[in-house]
């Protein structure tokens, strides 16, 4: 490698260009293999970006995206005066914050507990059960939740049987956010625990043996061996989650919420969806919300990447 570099330094520009051309020719099959993927990213990730200009335009269908007149920052001014926008921003941050507080730590606890279980059979069965919901869509899960918590559902019938009053969970502002939190734990805890369990498995078993000989009890081992062993991956996932705090579960909310709980459940993504496809849409305002979210998101993700490099010595991706 070092030798190749010194050879490169001694080459004339013409030689260097010829070598580059030869490298490109030698890599022709690599470019061929890249082509389909690159075309995909160009077509479905980059081309749509031309539509971003709509945030500064008064869109009229017959004039098209490029033909519609410019209106400056009018859409953003309108947006920042909308109470619904601020409400959805607040909900996004509150719900994502609750997820960080409750949904994030639970799989770590699960993984540590699973590591203490030595009966291989029951452990495997429980893991299959716990990871299963991850592979179902929110359409399916919300159908099951609506049935379970509905007016004639099992939960209400138990409440009535115990002498309580029926609760309309899905339309109740006081419980809706908790419904989001618990249903997310139901879906993802087992799956997210796998990541931590795999990391725990890679901890050197001799550490545990040595600790046992030194008289460490179970709690000591969790505190001084298991926890330090997974701390890096926990920090990385935590930073990643902070970086995507503007995502509070679009698909989940879109399937579970209804007008009765917009006040506490409407998040930025569902707000964009609502103003785009309900009533009289203003594409300019919708795009402006998307722009707002996209820019904040990008800044947060770049910060997360920076913080991760600083603390863990490597980037997130």
């Amino acid at each position: 490698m070092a030798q190749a570099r010194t050879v490169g330094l001694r080459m004339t520009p013409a030689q260097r260009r010829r070598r580059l051309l030869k490298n490109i020719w030698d890599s022709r099959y690599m470019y061929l293999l890249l082509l389909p993927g690159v075309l995909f990213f160009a077509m479905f990730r980059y081309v749509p970006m031309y539509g971003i200009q709509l945030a500064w335009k008064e869109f009229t269908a017959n004039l098209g995206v490029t033909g519609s007149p410019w209106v400056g920052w009018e859409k953003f001014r309108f947006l920042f005066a909308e109470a619904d926008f601020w409400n959805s921003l607040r909900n996004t941050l509150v719900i994502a914050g609750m997820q960080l507080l409750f949904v994030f730590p639970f799989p770590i606890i699960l993984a540590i507990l699973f590591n203490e279980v030595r009966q291989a059979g029951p452990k495997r069965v429980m893991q299959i059960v716990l990871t299963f919901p991850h592979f179902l869509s929110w359409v399916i899960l919300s159908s099951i939740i609506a049935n379970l918590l509905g007016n004639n559902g099992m939960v209400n019938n138990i409440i009535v049987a115990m002498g309580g009053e029926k609760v309309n969970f899905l339309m109740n502002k006081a419980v809706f956010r908790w419904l989001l939190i618990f249903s997310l734990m139901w879906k993802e805890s087992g799956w997210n625990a796998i990541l931590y369990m795999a990391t725990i498995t890679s901890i050197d078993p001799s550490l545990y043996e040595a600790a046992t000989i030194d008289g460490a009890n179970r709690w000591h081992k969790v505190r001084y061996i298991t926890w330090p062993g997974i701390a890096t991956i926990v920090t990385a996932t935590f930073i990643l989650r902070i970086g995507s705090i503007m995502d509070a579960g679009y698909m989940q909310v879109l399937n579970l919420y209804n007008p009765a709980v917009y006040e506490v459940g409407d998040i930025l993504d569902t707000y964009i969806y609502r103003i785009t496809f309900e009533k009289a849409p203003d594409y300019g305002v919708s795009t402006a919300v998307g722009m707002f979210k996209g820019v904040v998101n990008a800044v947060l993700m770049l910060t997360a990447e920076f913080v991760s490099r600083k603390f863990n010595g490597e980037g997130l991706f």
Partner: protein
Amino acid sequence: MTAQARGQGALHAGKSKLNRMTFTDVWIMAFLVFFSLLVFYPFYNSVLISITPQAVYIREPFMLWPKALDKSSYQYVFENKAIWSGMITTIQITLIGTAYNVFLTVTMAYALNHSFPGKKFVIAFIMFTMYFSGGLIPTYMMIKDVGLMNTLWAMILPSGVSISYLMVMRKFFQSIPEEVEESAKIDGANDLIIMFRVVLPLALPMVITFVIYYGVERWNEWYNGLLYIKSASKMPLQLVLRQIVQNSQSIQASESMQEAGITPFGDGIKMAAVIVTMFPVMVLYPFLQKYFVSGLTVGAVKG
């Protein structure tokens, strides 16, 4: 578990104290079993509702086992034309879509595991889309402008490469020894032949893992359908389910039921539709779980 690890377990068993169920062990087990039952019961309950007659369900909605069986909910679901057309659409999306996903991901990951001029630019080109995207409306306008609206392709083409899967696949290619490729190269094979004939067969377990991941995602497709599909006959299964569940008026007695004087059992039909929709995942999952998990662990444990 390797034979060696099992041997170690036996060694511990010899030291008796380590393998006895202590008080803490019992509590940990109890908690995990309780949580597993909590996760499991809603699915089991849905199955029970779908096979129970309405009268029995109303009397006793908290069931541990079915007191009486009734197949009318499934009959209703299978007489529903929307379910069938949804199933056909979803099968098409799953087959074509998964092939498209895996092809794009594998070719790209393979190339990115080699060095070539401009590689840094290609990586930046891909990574940028993680940080910033056009958003809902711009994507919607683009699908509209290229004439994909209300076609099967609108649900297939926009989801091509998942960047996290791409990274895991590349990491897996990295783990295959370079000598494998080098010796094939000496034999005069070009990169394409090496990839398809030499490396891919070695990477087959990983490729299968991604076939399954993408396949499940495709089976779960509904959102692009919600955005881009206007005609009911082209809706994917999950979207049909969503409409059945969210719109109770959509459940009406069929002709044969009217003749027999039966009122449809709404909850039973909804749950039967749920079970039918999740059936392939439900049946295959326990057998394929090791593939599901392997994709995650390759990506997690950084080498």
